[in-house]
Every structure is written in C-alpha cells, then in structure tokens.
C-alpha cells in the first residue's frame, strides 16, 4: 500500500506540475488550466505548475476584495472555498497523504537515515492560527492606502512557494535576483528550517503550519472516505501509534483531525483487522478472518512519531 501511495503522490505531483517547457520559455505556464485549483499545496508561480494553489488564490481574492467591490463585483473566494470544501468533504486530509506535492517532499526527506524525533502535539493548533490570520483575516483587513491587502502566508511563510517557485524563478530570471532582499532571505531561512526538521520529524509543516491541512482537518468527522475502528477487534496493543506519520493514536481517536488516511495503521500495524476503510459508512475491501479481541501485547521500544 505504501508503494501505491507513493506512486499516487508522484503522479499527482506531475499532473499539477506538467508544464515542462519552462526551461525554454523561462516563464510560468499561462494556459487555461490555471483556472483549476490543485488539491494540495502547490505554488502557482512554480514554473512547472499547471494549476492554481487554493491557498494562494484565496489570499489574492481576499487581498483585492475592496477593488472588486469598487468595480461592482464581490469576489470573496466562494469558488475556491467550494472547491476546497468538496475535496475536504470527500477526502479530508487524505489529500495531504496522497495528493500534496509538498507532503511527498517531506515524506522523502524523512526517509534520510537519522535519529527521529516526535513533535509536541500542542503545536498542531498553530496551523489553525495560520489559516485564520495569515490566510483570511490579515489579507482581508490589513490594507495599504490604495485598499490592497497582502498575501501574508505566501509572502512571509510558505516554504513550498520558496522551494518550488522562488528559487527556480530566481535561477531562470536574473532580473529578479536584484529584487531578492531580506524578504527572500526570511523565506529561504524558513524553508531550510522546515526541510531540516522534516529529516528528523515526520511531516512537520503539515502538522504545525499548513493552512490547507488545517482547512481539510475541519472535515475529520464528516468526510466521505475515512478509516474506521472496530472496537470489538481492537486489543489496544498500540501498534498503530508506532507507524503513524502524523502521531495519531488511532485506537484512542479514530476521527483524529491529523489523520491523513495513509493507511499505514491498517496495512502495516494492526494484526487484528480492527481498522478498515469506509466510504460514506460502507466498508470497502475484504476483511480477513482473524481472531477477535485477543489479549493486548507489548509493542517494544519503537520510535513514537
């Protein structure tokens, strides 16, 4: 299952980054596909990007909302929110686990052999702050004398934008290099910190900072595709704790907002088939005939992520 997920991640990354003429044209894709949003975090200023980043597009609309009102329109991002809501309603954070290019990058970085560390669970709440303030409130409320807001998250935080758009664009367009000052250095520093952190801890950006992940996390209890725990089969052996890349204790909170439905707990950990996948309440896939409610067992000293 892990191999299938990796291939889906790669395929998704290639689909939303399918413009490979950029080394020749030396600019970004400007075709009609950009009207579509990418399900995961994928900067639309990346030279290869063929779709829009929902978080970037939402901030742009909110930052310019006063101008559009002046021109008799009201662009408040309903198209973007509608798209993100449908993705959240169907897949929730499975998007993070299966479709997000920056999730793939972090997964690969975590494969670099090193000592591994956990992430304090209290840090998970930071990303809701980034969503509320950096994506919605600050672009909407903090405006200059012309009435224009800023894309706060993109401008000051987003490491995905720096990695996939900032660095390639500076390499391709020498004119931009002169404009790269403290702002770029700040973003470069944040990106490097997250990439180093991703070597030592699993998916630190997803768990602590990503506003798109925070939005999808709101659908944890109502999403269509989710994992289900069969309490009659669960022995509370805690094997699922050891394999979860998001630090979820699945047997204690099956609807945890951090679950990215990577299926590692179902596929690699649970020996009692207590975890299954369901779509809208309907179980999918067969369940092997395994013993029910066997005694709890010790799991040894594995790394708790």
């Amino acid at each position, binding site marked *: 299952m892990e191999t299938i997920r990796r291939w889906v991640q790669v395929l998704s990354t290639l689909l939303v980054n399918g413009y490979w003429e950029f080394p020749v044209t030396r600019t970004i894709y400007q075709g009609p596909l950009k009207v579509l949003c990418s399900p995961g975090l994928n900067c639309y200023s990346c030279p290869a990007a063929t779709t829009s980043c929902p978080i*970037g597009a939402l901030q742009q*609309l909110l930052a310019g909302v006063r101008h559009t009102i002046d021109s008799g329109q009201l662009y408040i991002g309903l198209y973007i929110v509608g798209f993100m809501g449908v993705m959240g309603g169907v897949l929730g954070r499975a998007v993070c686990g299966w479709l997000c290019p920056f999730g793939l990058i972090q997964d690969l970085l975590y494969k670099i052999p090193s000592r591994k560390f956990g992430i304090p669970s209290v840090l998970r709440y930071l990303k809701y702050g980034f969503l509320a303030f950096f994506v919605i409130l600050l672009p909407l409320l903090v405006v200059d004398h012309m009435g224009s807001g800023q894309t706060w998250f993109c401008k000051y935080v987003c490491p995905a934008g720096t990695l996939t758009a900032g660095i390639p664009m500076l390499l391709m367009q020498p004119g931009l290099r002169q404009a790269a000052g403290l*702002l770029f250095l700040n973003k470069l520093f944040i990106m490097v910190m997250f990439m180093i952190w991703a070597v030592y801890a699993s998916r630190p950006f997803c768990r602590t900072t990503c506003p798109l992940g925070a939005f999808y996390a709101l659908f944890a209890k109502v999403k269509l595709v989710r994992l289900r725990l069969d309490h009659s089969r669960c022995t509370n052996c805690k094997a699922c704790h050891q394999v979860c890349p998001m630090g979820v204790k699945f047997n204690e909170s099956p609807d945890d907002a951090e679950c990215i439905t990577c299926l590692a707990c179902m596929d690699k950990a649970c020996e009692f088939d207590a975890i299954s996948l369901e779509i809208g309440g309907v179980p999918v896939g067969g369940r092997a005939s395994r013993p029910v409610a066997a005694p709890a067992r010790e799991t040894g000293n594995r790394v708790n992520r």
Partner: protein
Amino acid sequence: MPPQVSRKPSRSSKTKVEVRRTPFVVILVFTLLGIIGIATGEPRRVLEQAVQVCLSCIGVG
C-alpha cells in the same frame, strides 16, 4: 381484505450497513458555494492572477 406487506427490513439480516448522510450534505453545500462562485465570475479572476508571477509568493515583492 388483502394482507398488508411489511416494507421494513428484516431483523435477521446478518450485516447492517448504515450509510452516513452527513458527508453528502457537506459536499452538496460546498458544491453550491462553488457554483455561486463560478456564477459570479470568480474563476476568471483566479485565472488572471494565476497566469502572472506572484512576486510576493516567491519572496521578492
């Protein structure tokens, strides 16, 4: 008088699958939001912005 036929499912069925309705309601609500956004012309505005290099996004603006 013809005998009445009960339409209730039998209690003896082995597995009872309960379809959750909430996800479908959520998806419907957000689909409607998206349609309203499309009707107001938001995709055109998104496209106008997305075909330009966002300097602030790449950290130079």
